[in-house]
């Protein structure tokens, strides 16, 4: 039973509506801003951006080299954008013997304009607490059982650099076009929770 001496907490909907009223009356919320922002986020900040970068890196050695040297430049070259506080995109190259995995232990920072909004598990306290210290165990629990000889590289997004993983191209997809390849690249593979090993030709 609720404590009668204090008012009930407003629902998130009510609190969000109150915030909207305050911003609107202060002049900080032009008409149409919310609609345009939500529409733009849904259209432009999508996982297929990163997937197209990966597919191009697999099919275009020159682009691959540029992407590994300067992820931001490679993303801009393909017409993708960054918010002001994402100053740098670093692309982490997986190999048969090296596996990269990304986390943000302090909050849930992600290169969301490139790989899409962070999935729920990435934002959960269990992942944030454990993957830095028990990387191999956590990945195994998530279905990625890496060979003992694989070097695991964990990247904690604690500054304003953002990261994405360049997965190893599955052998079964040799000869595919960039469009076909982009369709198999998942957000989880670009975070490092999977390696696309399940992809068959």
């Amino acid at each position, binding site marked *: 039973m609720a404590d009668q001496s204090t008012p009930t907490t407003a629902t998130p909907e009510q609190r969000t509506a109150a*915030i909207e009223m305050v*911003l609107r009356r202060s002049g900080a919320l032009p008409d149409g801003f919310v609609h345009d*922002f939500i529409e733009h986020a849904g259209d432009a900040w999508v996982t297929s951006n990163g997937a197209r970068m990966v597919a191009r890196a697999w099919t275009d050695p020159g682009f691959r080299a540029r992407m590994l040297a300067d992820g931001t430049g490679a993303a801009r070259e393909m017409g993708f954008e960054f918010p002001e506080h994402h100053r740098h995109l670093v692309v982490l190259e997986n190999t048969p013997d090296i596996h990269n995995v990304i986390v943000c232990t302090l909050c849930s920072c992600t290169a969301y304009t490139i790989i899409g909004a962070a999935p729920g598990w990435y934002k959960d306290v269990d992942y944030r607490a454990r993957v830095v210290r028990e990387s191999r165990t956590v990945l195994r629990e*998530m279905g990625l059982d890496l060979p003992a000889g694989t070097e695991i590289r964990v990247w*904690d997004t604690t500054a304003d650099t953002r990261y994405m993983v360049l997965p190893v191209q599955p052998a079964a997809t040799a000869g595919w076009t960039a469009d076909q390849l982009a369709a198999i690249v998942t957000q989880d593979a670009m975070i490092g929770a999977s390696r696309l090993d399940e992809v068959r030709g």
Partner: protein
Amino acid sequence: MDSLHDLGGKQGFGRVRYPYPAHQETWEPLLRALSASALKNHIYNMDEFRHAIERMAPRHYLTAPYFERHLTAVATLLVEKGLVTAEELEALAGGSVPLAGPIGPGRPAPPAQSFALGERVRVKNEYVSGHVRMPAYIRGKAGVVVGISPPYPFPDAAAHNMQAPPEPTYDVRFRARDLWPDSCDDAMNHVGVFQSYLEKAA
């Protein structure tokens, strides 16, 4: 600040829920847009926003879903920035509105000292009561610089609305067994570290 948001390496947590059920409350995209609008209008900056989340009561922080934390931070900042009083916000919302704890003093950046790729560095043994982007698990630990990123305002100052000179951040590589000897999986741990948190390693 050493609060519960700083989760890296904490023990006792459980299995990661994976795959995670896709679900989005209708207010979440609206709140995200509202916060973007406040940022764009310089009502607060990203560091102030992050610090407001960190100042949430630990019990609330750990039990709040992701966007509840954002909601609490935005409400807190609108009150702190004087756009609305807490009482008026509650009247508008029709109920109580949880806010984060009060903000303390920030700190200015120390004199600049730059580092080179491949250089061995140590994370300063600092305890900061305001905003800081150094996860506790690397405090006092030594590693190697493997990447350098463009300058960004010093967060410990920016989160407190102080002058925050831009400074580079470094990707620093640590060995997991140096961070948690005898109690970790073997790995190379990379952390994005602001220049002011580092010193040359002996």
